[in-house]
């Protein structure tokens, strides 16, 4: 029973991991069995909190263009680091690796955002480094 109690307590403590990081349950919203790799051009970036939404025009093998909504992180920290909606311009070519929404529409969580030159989005642009001081006085 004591072991059980400890396990339950561990779960309770994990539940304490904040909503800040767990704003919504990714795996409940998106499907691990539906990995997607989308190559397209940025059509729009909604910098809305707590989750950005990128709109991507993705051209299929048949030449047909489909719009996808890709979820990404909170823009607050990016703005503080100097990344704005003008940093990644409309028309930028992106490859997004992620998982499609369980509801089956053209929505996905963007696991990796990869620019044309192979770098991953924002990290290189923001200049963020461990201990990052860009927002200190």
């Amino acid at each position: 029973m004591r072991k059980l109690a400890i396990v339950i307590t561990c779960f309770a403590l994990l539940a304490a991991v904040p909503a800040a990081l767990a704003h919504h349950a990714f795996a409940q919203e998106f499907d691990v069995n539906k990995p997607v790799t989308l190559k397209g051009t940025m059509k729009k970036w909604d910098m809305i909190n707590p989750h950005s939404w990128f709109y991507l025009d993705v051209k299929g093998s048949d030449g047909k263009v489909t719009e996808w909504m890709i979820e990404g992180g909170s823009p607050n920290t990016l703005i503080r680091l100097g990344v704005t909606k003008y940093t990644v311009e409309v028309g930028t070519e992106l490859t997004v690796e992620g998982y499609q929404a369980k509801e089956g529409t053209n929505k996905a969580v963007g696991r990796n955002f990869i620019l044309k030159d192979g770098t991953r989005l924002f990290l290189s642009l923001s200049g963020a480094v461990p201990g990052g001081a860009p927002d200190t006085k």
Partner: protein
Amino acid sequence: MNCRCLASLGALALAVGVAAGLMAPQPMAGQAQTAQPRAAASAPAKPWTGKTPEGVPDLQGYWTNNSYTPLQRDPNMTKEFFTKEELAADEKRRAAQQEEQTTPGTTGDVHYDFTQFSLDRSQTRLTGNLRTSMITDPPNGRLPARVGADAGAAAPAAGGGRGAGGAGGRGAAGAAAPAAAAGGGRGQAAAPAGGARGGGGGNATYDQVQNISIGSRCIWSANTVPIMMPPGYNPAYQIAQGPGVVMILIENQHEVRVIPTDNRPHAPSGVKPWLGDSTGHWEGNTLVVETVNYNPRTLTGTFQGASDQLKVTERFTRIDEDSIRYEFTVDDPKTWVQPWKGEMPFVKINGPIFEHACHEGNYGIANTLNAYRQEEKKAAEAAKAAQPAK
């Protein structure tokens, strides 16, 4: 970047692993330190004497409590304080942990990459807290025994606790759903046993909006409730003061604490605000705030298992231009055999606070409910297919 081990672990293993101290500092050699260095790593500055027009200490400005400091000290840690060099090494190690990629095709991989979005803790200013735990009393830096616990079973073997989940919390799973869907994702919460659904992060299900955690519903965030623990991202606060009142605007989930400083009595116990009922007063240079009457759904799964008897006393003391010492005492005789205390610094950052307009961007609720309906449909179809033909 190449470690692809986290997501391959099961939810329980992760839960236990995390709780057992993934986030806690590694054992350090050396004797216990007894000196009391400043909480922040910066050099001592001129003592703060600033006052507001009202004549009370001026706490105003923009602040962060961003830190890797665990609530509880690792049982193997022998020191109360790191040296600056040790802290730098510890922060570097934790930053590397946060940058690790999860394994594609696993539940833990279903999230966006925090590092890419500059959301990892290391990418915002850290407070430089040299303490090896937030808890200062009991002196071992760990939670006291729980009421009714077996002798020797004192505090649960947990390193983190509420709000300190940035690095270690990733990859945990455990939400209930019809087809074994799980919370997943870095920093996701697991479901504790018991308690009302839809609380502060625990025991949520996704069948209807009322059962989804109040954090996901943009009602509340764990870092907003006294104790104000560091959130995983957007750890920014603004303090403003007026005659007889202190306001704390909390960026993460855009919550506001309005604290009267006239030491007025608490509201009747039947009044249970999401953030509890706070009343404050000044003791010399220190703002003292006492909070009781926590909402039951705030307590559910979010506050180390505290009861409705929870009382938190916070003490804000501005040390210098750059820092506030934030101390807290947690008193809950139904839960712990003794009160426990902790401390962390808040350090200055540049403003402004950016609006965290959670509802406006909260497509997640509709998506998760839609996903649940899809799973129900599939489960019903599977059940129908499994029935023997008549």
